[in-house]
């Protein structure tokens, strides 16, 4: 069976004597080539869920299958883009990209590595910044390099935890568009799991939105609007507005529950 399957997944954080249940018996399926956005209020367990998919965290019970096989730790079929500080500061842009490729493709020559590195930096629009160190680049540029590095290993699955969370609104739009374009241009689309708490971002990007209440996925909401989606005309679309309202209400109720069911004015 292909795709990602999450089966009865629970995760408990232990700090000293204290235990905290962060994920409570989550089960879901993600099809190959789907673009999934995970949304939910802060602290509901989005990063934890992604951490399990990345292989950086071991579930307390349950498991994750990729193409029918349970995962143990990280794997070359998955690539990750974190929110911040994801480049190695002593390597320039192309060295960062090449370093990623080298870990999974030991057979490539230096020339081939260089060419692939260049190709992917070109895709994210950084051809002229190949030899810049991360410290000499803006946050947006650094995230572009991180995306190039993730894509360059040709993973089946791309895991992104608020990759644009620390980026200004305007740059964010460009990066969303770029990501969508790169995702759409593949013959065999990558499966993307993208964590965000920006509702508009989720609707623009996703095939399906997983809405997390604390510790679990409370709603799976398909986004049926046709692609390519255009941010400007999207706001005039009734489907978009309905979906957006629905999500805002979910968020709102979520917050209300969080603070004990009292009336809140946002």
């Amino acid at each position, binding site marked *: 069976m292909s795709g990602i399957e999450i089966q009865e997944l629970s995760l408990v954080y232990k700090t000293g004597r204290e235990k905290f249940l962060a994920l409570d018996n989550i089960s879901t399926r993600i099809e190959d080539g789907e673009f999934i956005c995970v949304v939910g209020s802060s602290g509901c367990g989005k990063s934890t869920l992604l951490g399990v998919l990345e292989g950086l965290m071991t579930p307390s019970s349950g498991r994750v299958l990729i193409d029918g096989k349970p995962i143990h730790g*990280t794997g070359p079929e998955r690539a990750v883009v974190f929110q911040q500080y994801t480049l190695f500061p002593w390597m320039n842009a192309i060295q960062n990209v090449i370093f990623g490729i080298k870990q999974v493709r030991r057979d490539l020559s230096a020339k081939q590595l260089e060419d692939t590195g260049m190709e992917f930096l070109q895709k994210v629009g950084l051809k002229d910044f190949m030899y810049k160190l991360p410290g000499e680049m803006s946050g947006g540029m650094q995230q572009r390099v991180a995306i190039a590095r993730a894509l360059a290993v040709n993973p089946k699955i791309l895991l992104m935890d608020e990759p644009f969370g620390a980026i200004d609104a305007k740059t964010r739009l460009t990066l969303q568009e770029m990501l969508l374009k790169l995702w759409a241009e593949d013959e065999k689309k990558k499966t993307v799991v993208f964590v965000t708490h920006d509702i508009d971002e989720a609707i623009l990007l996703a095939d399906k939105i997983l809405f997390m209440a604390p510790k679990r996925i409370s709603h799976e909401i398909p986004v049926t609007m046709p692609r390519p989606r255009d941010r400007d005309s999207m706001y005039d679309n009734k489907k978009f507005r309905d979906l957006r309202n629905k999500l805002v209400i979910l968020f709102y109720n979520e917050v209300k529950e969080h603070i004990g069911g009292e009336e809140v004015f946002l």
Partner: protein
Amino acid sequence: MSAANKDAKIGLPGMLLNLPVFLYIISAALVFLPSRMSERVTMSNPVAFLFVLTFCIVFFWVKLGGKGDKRQAKDIGTVVLTFFLLWEVITTKLDRLPYIFVPAPENVFYSYIQLWDYMLSGLARSMYLLLTGFIASLVLGVSLGIAVGWFPRLRQAVFPIAKAISTVPAIVYGPYIVVIMPTFTTASILVIFFGTFWSTFMNMINRVGTIDARIINTAKVLNVNTRTMLFSIIMPYTLPRIINDMSVALSISMMTLTFAEMIGADRGIGYFVRRSLDYANYTQAFAGIFFIAVVITVLQVFIAVLKKKLIKWNY
């Protein structure tokens, strides 16, 4: 460094009309005036002293014409040349101090011309001991520290022990090592090695344990193997601090070396100073001490250059 300092081009008048140059001219002229000390002591040829003075002023000009802070260059040049001028005046010219204990600069620097082959072979010998012990300690301390630091259980067991041992200076058990080792060479290399090994090792374990989790996670999701993690990620990540600690470690090594040479050597620059002191030849002792200072400075400059070459990023 201010922008004004950087842009200001120093012309020929700027190069010549300043305090260090003035002091240089006075000192150099004084050398040729009659000396009172020569009534009691045989004065050596001043050529070596003149050379040192000239070297100072040339070095000053290089700094003044360079990109660095010009005021600092002038201040340092003034202090150094004032020192030489006072030294020359108080000893050679006026003979105000007991000549046995405070030798004349002419004589001190002339020692290098008289004894250059002896001093150079002593230097070679000392550098051999110093660099062998220091480099071995650096390489082993860093690589073992990285390896031990990477495995939490090993780290938790070894760190407190290394920390406890590192508080005991190697020169405390140095004499014991000299007794048990077959030759003085192996003994002093070992003492120099232990002089910095434990602290390098301990610092490295600590650094690996406290390294930014995001760097480690990024490397993990790129599927690096353990060797790549240790030597392509953790090593470069900690390199700036390794190099920073190197200059401290080098000074400690030099101290340990001098100590070792004072207890059992039959050559080397530390031995040269000790023997000169034993024979109350303070002229040579001064020469030896200057020499050691210059050697350490050169090594430290080398480390600074290394750092500049290797570290182009800041974190």
